[in-house]
């Protein structure tokens, strides 16, 4: 597979994080902002073993991942599950913000076709597209700021009685950071300057989330407790033009983020399937079909996967890379001896 630059790595990671943020129902508050900051600092520490592993020598996915093919299967399961959860989020959001989607399954099917096609073009093409979508994200944030500037009330920036504790928000943010798991695979396909790409992503993600949260709290005040999807509602509250609503920018952005997010999962899952079953030729199609099936199952049963999801992220982005790092250190010492 062709390698991507650190700027493209930055774009891909940021967009998949922002998709999760856009689809979040968690209310914005001072405690949430503090929690996100703590979580980002923790993530900056967690990525260090991955960066060391990839800097010194590429990660051999087949050999280095703990438990070999079984370990790789865990990663495949994670990316397929992530794609399925992304479809569930798509349905959740479209149902709430009154998008003209009459048939949910058909809409998901169309998105799946687009993502399948995009995944067949490869990671390099996706990464280039991600850089372009980054421009759209910047435009959406600029429109939001222009509309919010005169509406922000500093008196709204106060503790929220209905808010959880800072540590709960920190834990929630960390356990929703699936891009940490994606990072381990993506770093293998990044040419150089891994540190730059990763730490730029962490900084940009923190800045954007705090920026949008600040605007949301400042503009909505008491209304935050009534809001279901804060990102979209803030878009409605911060219209820059009196004659025209700018909601379409956020809708278009959401569609692009959804496609890029699911396409990344398909690509990562198919790369790992290839490591497990080198002769299997239908990796992408299998991944997307499994995603759709699991998403329908989650949606119809209303399963809450937050515990499993958080556990997988901790296992695959913290414990597994740590084991890989320790094993490599031990092997190096044994070889030197």
């Amino acid at each position: 597979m062709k390698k991507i630059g650190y700027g493209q790595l930055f774009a891909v990671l940021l967009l998949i994080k922002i998709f999760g943020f856009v689809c979040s129902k968690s209310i914005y508050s001072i405690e949430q902002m503090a929690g996100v900051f703590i979580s980002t600092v923790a993530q900056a520490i967690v990525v260090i073993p991955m960066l060391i592993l990839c800097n010194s020598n590429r990660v051999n996915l087949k050999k280095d991942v703990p438990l070999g093919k079984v370990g790789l299967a865990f990663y495949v399961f994670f990316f397929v599950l992530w794609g399925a959860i992304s479809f569930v989020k798509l349905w959740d959001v479209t149902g709430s913000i009154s998008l003209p989607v009459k048939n949910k399954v058909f809409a998901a099917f169309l998105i799946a076709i687009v993502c399948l096609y995009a995944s067949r073009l490869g990671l390099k093409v996706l990464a280039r597209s991600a850089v372009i979508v980054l421009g759209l994200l910047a435009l959406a944030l600029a429109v939001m700021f222009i509309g919010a500037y005169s509406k922000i009330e500093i008196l709204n920036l106060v503790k929220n009685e209905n808010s959880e504790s800072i540590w709960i928000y920190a834990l929630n943010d960390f356990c929703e950071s699936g891009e940490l798991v994606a990072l381990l695979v993506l770093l293998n396909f990044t040419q150089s300057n891994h540190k730059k790409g990763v730490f730029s992503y962490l900084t940009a993600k923190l800045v954007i989330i705090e920026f949008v949260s600040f605007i949301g709290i400042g503009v909505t005040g008491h209304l935050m407790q009534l809001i279901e999807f804060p990102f979209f509602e803030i878009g409605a509250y911060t219209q820059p033009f009196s004659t025209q609503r700018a909601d379409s920018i956020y809708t278009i952005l959401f569609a692009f983020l959804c496609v890029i997010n699911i396409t990344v999962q398909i690509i990562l899952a198919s790369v790992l399937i290839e490591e497990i079953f080198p002769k299997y030729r239908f990796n992408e199609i299998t991944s997307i079909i499994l995603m759709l099936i699991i998403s329908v199952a989650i949606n119809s049963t209303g399963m809450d996967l937050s515990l499993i999801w958080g556990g997988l992220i901790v296992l695959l982005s913290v414990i597994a890379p740590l084991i890989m790092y320790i094993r490599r250190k031990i092997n190096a010492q044994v070889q030197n001896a």
Partner: protein
Amino acid sequence: MLKYKMHKVKAICLTLSLPLILSGCNHSAIEVRDRAFVQAIGIDGEKNPSVVVSIFGNDSDEYTVYSGEGKTIFEAIADAETKQDKNLFIGHIELIALGKRNLLDDLEILLSNSRISPSCTVVYSDVNAGEIIADKNSWNLLETIKIKSKNGYISEKSVANVLDDLLGSDKAAAIPIVEIDQINMAIVGENGLKGILTETEAQGLAWLSETIKNLTLPIELENETVNLRVESAKSRVTSTIDGNKVTTTFHITLSGDVLEKNYTLEQISEPAQQTIISLCQAAVQRTVHSLNVDVLNIEKSIKVADYNYYMEHKDNWNHMLKNINFKYEVDLLK
């Protein structure tokens, strides 16, 4: 050759699937000409709502109104839709007139799923909101509200402003009230109208709510009255807590010029400050002391000053509000 054939197949599949996702080919899409854009809506009925909708016309003098009834607001709107031949679209509503109903519930429902813009203007009617929309040209009404607000006679309020106030501890909000021949300011609560402000009190409220854009303020001097042309005005509220004593200070900063050439800004500065302070005092006296409501962000300023103090005393909010000391600082900039 095989690769070229695969590319062709992919291109054909993509081209064939594009019409499926292009909205123009969607048979359920509604053309703009088949939509009627609602400019204003009046909602009445304590139990079952009745609505009057005013549709945008070709110019500001042209408007048509339709009425409807139902068990819910949206059923009433659907009923109004059946009285004419187009699909009603409420996403561009500019004015909502609410009658004797639960304002909090109505605004929450209207705002849910971003059906209407949060910056839509809200007014209240203690008699019949539907009649206001039906009898008056809603375009002219909206423009009148904007001009009166800009000139400091009333404070224009949006759905977001009113809802934010109603979600406070005292569940009360200041809102323009449209009566037969005039527009004033009213204080409404959960159970309906609490009181109507006088012109002086409404002007004080406008100064404290930062809705004034430009106005001419008459200043009484010893021998004559001069005019201060206010070009911009900003206000903010801060609170300090010393033991159990809460002091709330309203800071008003304004810039302007004297219309009479024989006077300078320095000469009229003190009388101007006194005039503005007396207007603000009238507003605070009526809202806080007489009606016992906070429509001036006092609660928020106390939260910012000392959150723990607020949480300890919030169950006794009405009592706390009555015992606050108020100060006023007015700065006139050149």
